[in-house]
């Protein structure tokens, strides 16, 4: 199991487009992937789950992956946050 904390850096927070990107990327992995914000846990493959976190700019999110490709999964999803989902 791998975990890593990331910060929401893009201006508008996790609105539809970033949520869609995260869930689409997450679906490419075998591992079970979770996102946690303030103790609230959602499936990273669920766009509705991610949307329901309502994470705004500055929120801290913990990514946890468990499975055969957990390292790559965390790496790639963390990178999305880092690059602000190519927004600005």
């Amino acid at each position: 199991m791998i975990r890593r904390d990331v910060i929401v850096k893009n201006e508008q927070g996790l609105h539809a487009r970033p949520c869609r990107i995260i869930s689409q990327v997450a679906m490419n992995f075998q591992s079970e992937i979770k996102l946690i914000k303030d103790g609230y846990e959602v499936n990273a493959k669920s766009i509705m789950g991610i949307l329901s976190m309502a994470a705004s700019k500055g929120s801290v999110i913990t990514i946890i992956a468990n499975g055969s490709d957990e390292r790559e999964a965390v790496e790639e999803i963390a990178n999305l946050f880092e690059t602000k989902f190519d927004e600005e």
Partner: protein
Amino acid sequence: MIVKRGIGINVGIAIGKTFILEDDAVIVEKKVLPREKIKDEVARYKMALSKTSQELELVKSHVLEALGRQHAKLIDAHSMILKDPLITKDVIGMIVNERVNAEYALSKKIEEVLKKFEKITDTFFIERKNEIIDISKKIIQNLTNKKPNIINQINKPVVLVANNLLPSDLINISKSPYVIAFCTNLGSKTSHTALFAQNMGIPAVLGLGDITKIVKNDTNIIVSSGENSVIIDPTPEMMDVYIKKKEQLAKSEIYLNRIKKLPTVTRDGRKITLMVNLDRDDSIDEYKNMNSDGIGLFRTEFLYLNRDSIPSEDEQVNVYRKILTSTPSLPIVIRTADIGADKVSNIGFKDIISETNPFMGFRGIRLFLRYPDLLKTQIKAIYRASLDTNVHIMIPMVTNLDEIIQVRAIIDDIKKELYAKRITFKEDIPLGVMIEVPSAALIVDYILDYVDFISIGTNDLIQYLLAVDRVNQYVSNMYDPFHPAVLRILNLIVSTAHKKGKKVSVCGEMASDPLGAIVLLSLGVDALSVPLKLFLKVKQHIRSLNYDKLSFLGTKILNESDSSKVVEMIEKEMIYEFK
């Protein structure tokens, strides 16, 4: 009278009667299933999911075609909700583990998500919440196979009032010619409802909160989307004010400019090729701004008129180059000059006497083949101006095959000459002819073997076919574009061309007449070409039509012997436009 404010989409005014789309409350019962039925239940659920997904794809293709990629992404968010593990896995998990029916499992799971959304007050998320509700409703509709589809049953012009519109409702609205505007309780500027309204170009006011609770069915209503407002049960004075406002708006620049940016598609999303007719080279800028599909007819007579010499090859090259490079990728059809006897005597052909019947006389290709140098100069100039353009050449007044064969031979000579001089040109310039004489129409199958395209000149075709001189006051009332003979000959031309895999355009006046355009499209004409001045009007007209209905109309009018009945049938098709 009550005035309500909301979010207006499009600038427009609609005046009509309300039609309330009842929000069918979904009552989901819990059923516990026997173990052996679980497999079927999961299959039933999966079937409903794939049906819903297909419907979304349909919506997406509509949006994509009319509004472009950026907007279709919003629909993608919808399909992502459908693919969400919560819907694909968790619901199935619940069906299997708790042995409950799919409707119940789905509504429970959706309820859970929505609870989480409740705490969020941001408008953006409220919109997403509505999308999730829409999708789940849609799935349940597909599970229960309950197709309300009331919109299809509307048969008079209405202003549709609803709580919220599902994508499938919106498709039905776009297919129904009778919905002249709509108002909803929910919806924001970025909702799919807004996008669809934009695409259809009809006035809509969204986010009205409680309009469905305030209005009753069949009440007078004014929708003024430019003012973000609706007026329920207006006073007669208010009604008069808005009838005037509506007339002014139709003429206003804002309105026409908006139409300019919209694609030429029918309400049900069928793209219609709409081109312009130009008869000079001085309106090029206006043409470029019009966002048309090209020039369907560039008349060249102006080059020969009001002068006493023939335009030189170089002079013509300059004019054609200017036209052709204005929109190099769009098709531009240059018609060789259709000049008659009276116009030629000025430029040095003294042996021509005045004719008693010039319409049946020495004009068009007849004259140019008698003086082949004129034709040669013109075609050579077009070839010299043709490089990296989408030029087409069209011959007027063709009555037999031999004329086309002679023109082909002249073109071959010109090409050889240009090769010899090492002048580069576009190799494969399509050659077409005007079909404007009944004899050409009746042998159009032979003609099509020699040309790349045809264009129907309805003005001349109708007057030759009916033997009616339009300027003769004693018979001009017999000039009738809806005469069964006209419809038959048009049908013959179009169907023959399509059998040979070739396109037909129409550049006559019939194309810019509202009823005429309906007839032409219903008979399957591929492109209309209209005067620049009328372009936006015709485009607006096309955007109000329903293509599916038109093709049906085509067979109906071909079986009608009375032209006044034909007109009645067509008028029925456009009833909503004048209401």
